C-alpha cells in the first residue's frame, strides 16, 4: 500500500492531486505509522477506532476503502486499487 501511494503522490507532484486519508488508528500508532512509512499526505483522524464518526457516515465496513473524487468533489470511482487506481487518476487528470 504505502510504496504505491508514495509513488503516486510523487508522480502527481505539482498537479492538482492529493491523497486524503481517514485514519482509524490510535493517535500514537498513527503518528508512528506516518513517520515510519514516510506518509506526507494529510488524514482526518477518526477518533482512534474503526467505528469512528466519519467511517460510520460513509458506511465503511472494510479497510482500506477507497473513493476517488474529481475536482468538483463528485465520486467517480470506488475501491480501485493498484494499477487501476493510477489509471483512474490519469483519466481524471486528462479531463482537466
Amino acid at each position, binding site marked *: *500500500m504505502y510504496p504505491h*501511494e508514495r509513488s*503516486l503522490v510523487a508522480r*502527481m507532484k505539482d498537479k*492538482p*492531486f*492529493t*491523497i*486524503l*486519508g*481517514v*485514519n*482509524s*488508528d490510535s*493517535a500514537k*500508532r*498513527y*503518528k*508512528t*505509522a506516518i513517520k515510519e*512509512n514516510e506518509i506526507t499526505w*494529510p*488524514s*482526518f*483522524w*477518526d477518533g482512534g477506532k*474503526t467505528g469512528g*464518526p*466519519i*467511517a460510520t*457516515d*460513509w*458506511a*465503511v465496513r472494510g*479497510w*482500506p*476503502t*477507497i*473513493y*476517488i*473524487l*474529481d*475536482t*468538483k*468533489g*463528485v*465520486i*467517480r*470511482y*470506488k475501491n480501485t486499487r493498484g494499477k487501476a*487506481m493510477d489509471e483512474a*487518476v490519469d483519466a*481524471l*487528470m486528462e479531463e482537466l
Partner: protein
Amino acid sequence: MVSKFIPLTIAMMIGFHPVASIAQDTSGPTISKIIETHEDAVEVLYKKMRGKSREEQQKLYEAEYPKPDQAIESITALVLANPGGSASLDGIDWLLRYSGQKGVNPALYNVLETHHLHSEKLQAIVLKMARSRTPETQNFLTTVSEKSKIKDARGAAILSLMKRIERDKEKEDEHTALSKTLFAEHADLIINGRNVTKSIKAKREAEEKLAIGKVAPEIIGKDVDGKEMKLSDYRGKIVVLDFWGDW
C-alpha cells in the same frame, strides 16, 4: 430357540424406524424425538471438537458429523402423513435448516399453504427460505406475502424474496418493487427485536448518497493534532479518499 427372537427384532425395527408408525397421529412426539436425537449427536461432536486445533476439528467434523439424510427422510414422511398436526410446522422448520439452496421436498410447500398459511409461527419459517433457489420457494413466498393473515409473516416473506435476488443485477427492478412494498406496508417489521425495514432503508439511503456520480458528502473533522479540516477544502484537486489504518 430362534423363533423367540423374532418379536424382539420386530420391536427393535419399529423403534429404530419411526416411519413405520406414521399411521397413527403420533407424529408429534416422534418428530421431536428424531430432531432431538440428531441435535444431541451434533452437540456431542461439537463438545469433542472444543479446544482442538483447526485441523483436528476439520478432521473430526468430516469423519463424525451425523449425516441428517435419514432424519430428513423420516421427518418429511411424518409431516406429509399428518400435515395439519401440531408438530408439522416444527418438523418443516427443522427441515429448512438443513435444506440449503435445493429447498425442502416440494410437497411440503403445499402442506404449509394448505394448513399453516395463517400460523403465528410462519414468520420464522419464511425467513429460513431466503437461501433456497427453487421455484417452489419463490411461489410459496409470493403466496405468503399476498395472502397470509399474519402481517409479520407477509413482511418476512417480502424480505426473503428480496434476499434471494439481492446480488442478481438482472432482477434489480423486481428488488426495487419489493422494497417499495416493504417500506410502504411494513415500516415496523421487527425481527429478533430489530426493526429491519428501518435499517434496510437507512442502508439504502447511505448507499445512494455515496453512489458514483454523486457529490461526496462533506466531511468536517480534525487531524491527529486537533487542527480542523474539511473535505471541501480540497475542491479543485483530484482526491483519493483513503479510509486506512496501520494494522
